[in-house]
């Protein structure tokens, strides 16, 4: 699929700007559960598709935002490369634009970086209907403010993504996952001890007394690391990490509100955790999934204490979703929103009611 809908999309945004009509931006609608509810006319990016350039030796791919994530991953795979941040898709229709707008990253994130870390540039339509290009297709670029990365995680509230350029990396030669039986605190200690050494770790998870550690890299290096740390080899490890990233593991099979907690990796226990089975650890302890009926106020207040943040990821009221910002930060956020979207037409309220 390859279709340039830039001008039609621009026209829609220009009309919305003039009429002050709100637009709800969607790609593949694969992450519709995420974020606050937006009541607005739909602006679909699903038909704006196509890889615009990909040169494996340059380690850069540029694609229109509606390009399916799976198409990009398949193309990279043909050349032995990958999106290093291992983005979750959540369904077949996920697009690269939605992936960047949500800035969600998978198991490799703690060891390789997030979606925003691999974003080199983007083309957007701002809230006035202007097509603007920031960043570029090169690794090092400090000309102008880093508006591209500002778009990552802004959930479409600052601009409609038209094109994104991403840095890609070679796939590791070998991956082996080792399993260890231990308690949560032992798992946290182990993960920290290893993270201070040059072991080639590329993913970690802990749940139900099992610590899983994935090693990636040159075959000899991975084998040496496995010999060094011990544990049992996990069978079908590739499927396990896929299922974790896509939230297909049994843990995620629940109707309870699912919280995503991002906090310092060495926090041992959280006051509102009742049943240890309701917490799933990733990213060396820095990301925790929590099934909880606690109120958003309680969870957000607890996260403030740890200088972390919590988002209500699934099965939510779609109101109190994200960690409240301090008044000073909210002021800057509101000013930025006005700077990009003066009539507040792009995904209004998706992130915070004020934006």
């Amino acid at each position, binding site marked *: 699929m390859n279709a340039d809908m830039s001008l039609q999309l621009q026209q829609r945004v220009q009309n919305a700007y003039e009429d002050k009509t709100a637009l709800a931006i969607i790609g593949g609608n694969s992450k519709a559960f995420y974020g606050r509810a937006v009541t607005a006319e739909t602006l679909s990016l699903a038909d704006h598709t196509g890889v615009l350039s990909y040169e494996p030796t340059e380690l850069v791919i540029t694609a229109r935002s509606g390009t399916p994530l799976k198409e990009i991953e398949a193309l990279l795979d043909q050349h032995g490369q990958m999106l290093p941040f291992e983005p979750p898709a959540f369904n077949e229709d996920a697009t690269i634009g939605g992936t960047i707008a949500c800035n969600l990253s998978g198991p490799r994130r703690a060891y390789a970086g997030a979606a925003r*870390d691999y974003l080199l540039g983007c083309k957007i339509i701002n809230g006035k209907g202007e097509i603007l290009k920031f960043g570029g297709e090169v690794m090092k670029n400090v*000309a102008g*403010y880093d508006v591209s*990365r500002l778009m990552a995680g802004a959930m479409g509230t600052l601009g409609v993504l038209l094109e994104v350029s991403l840095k890609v990396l070679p796939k590791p030669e070998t991956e082996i996952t080792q399993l260890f039986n231990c308690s949560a605190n032992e798992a946290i200690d182990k993960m920290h001890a290893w993270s*201070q050494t040059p072991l080639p770790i590329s993913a970690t998870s802990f749940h139900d007394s099992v610590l899983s550690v994935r090693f990636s*890299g040159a075959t000899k290096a991975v084998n040496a690391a496995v010999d060094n740390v011990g544990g049992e080899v996990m069978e079908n490890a590739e499927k396990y990490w896929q299922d974790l990233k896509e939230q297909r593991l049994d843990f995620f099979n629940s109707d309870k509100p699912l919280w995503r907690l*991002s906090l310092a990796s060495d926090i041992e226990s959280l006051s509102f955790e009742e049943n240890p089975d309701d917490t799933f650890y990733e*990213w060396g302890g820095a990301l925790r999934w929590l099934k909880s009926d606690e109120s958003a106020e309680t969870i957000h207040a607890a996260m403030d204490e740890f200088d972390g943040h919590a988002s209500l990821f699934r099965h939510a009221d779609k109101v109190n979703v994200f960690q409240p910002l301090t008044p000073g930060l909210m002021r800057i956020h509101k000013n930025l929103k006005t700077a990009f979207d003066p009539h507040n037409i792009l995904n209004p309220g998706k992130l915070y009611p004020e934006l």
Partner: protein
Amino acid sequence: MNMTEHNIQAGNKVSLLKALLKLLPEDAVLHEEEDLHPYECDGLSAYRHLPMIVVLPDTFEQVQAVLRLCYQCEVPVVARGAGTGLSGGALPLDNGVLLSLAKFKDIIHIDPKRRIARVQPGVRNLAISQAVDQFGLYYAPDPSSQIACTIGGNVAENSGGVHCLKYGLTVHNIQQLKIITIDGELLTIGGSGLDSAGYDLLALMTGSEGMLGVIVEVTVKLLPKPERAQVILAAFDNVVKAGEAVGNIISAGIIPAGLEMMDKLAISAAEDFVHAGYPLDAEAILLCELDGTNEEVSEHVAKVREVLQQSGATEVRTAKDEAERLTFWKGRKAAFPAVGRLSPDYYCMDGTIPRKQLPRVLEAMAELSKDYNLPVANVFHAGDGNLHPLILYDANIPGELERTEEFGGKILELCVEVGGTITGEHGVGIEKINQMCVQFNPLELTQFHAVKAAFDPQSLLNPGKAVPTLHRCAEFGAMHVHKGELPFPELERF
């Protein structure tokens, strides 16, 4: 704040001085001309200006008080770290206050478990790695000025270094910032986790060249030191072949820790200076550093040697020990001063290009070098496409600096033309402000100004840097039409 202070007008040095002395100790306010001279320029010494007043606060409260005063009196403020920047980002204003962060030089806390260090902005880049070495950790970004440059300046410029391809820039290696806005508000950006709520202000602040806020604290991420590092030196009889070899290494699935290229002029200058054992008959050399675990490095060294040979290298040498590895690097690290010995002055450029465009860019640069009759040595972060052409000139020859700048500007425009950028890691500052008009259109520049206004509506923080006014671009465009024949040659142009 009393009424007198409210009424201070920009440029009214006496009343501003009086107000500042109420906020800061006497020795933290410099105003005599002789005391101001050390601050007249940064690493781009061709541009000099005396600031009206220099302040050296040492607490958040003092910085807040100074900024509030300047905000109320509408006095511009330029923040400064070590002053090693190469684009004139810290060039003072004669009607402004220069805010030095030099007294903020404490490492506040090292947390080896979380692999972070919380430091004040005036801490030197290298000092961080030295302080955390005892835990087997280091801070990855290593700009060539790392011995002197400070972390606050690194964040303001989004500094890189020779290890960016594998380990990223400053933006990839920081976790939290404390900044003070122009109206004196202290903000904490980022958190204890790997991401934070809301917009990515951490990325927006990084590389914002002191235009959005004053950085007063930085939490950096630390990495475990690699078990082993090994460097390979390869010689080529042709620069294009060396460029292709870089692509071939990456195609083999290897991301080297560092991948540097030097051309013939740079090789001979460096060899002459530090005797690194570089082959003098080569047209280009590549230095390829591989790091990681012992096994990984061994495997990759063998693979890279093979790729280099297949790519037509005339010679491939692996450093036989740590001493030789350091010697190989010494030549590269001394390349700038070494080239400096060839001519009274040199001008270091900083563009990035898609690597495949290297032959075209080198060829065009050689043409320009002939046209301007100014030699160019090339040092190249080849892995990530970041070029550092060094133009050799003599500032004592009337008009030669101007010709050099014009030549440099052409090189940057060439980088944009081939799909690259006018600055890879040195920043725009005052130096490349005209070329911003080439890289961005008026709508994009207007969006940048709106971003600035979201933080600094009166444009008091480092005004006139990094993002040109549309008016300036219109004038620059006019200059372009006439090529070399500028409409008002008597006017200063920066």
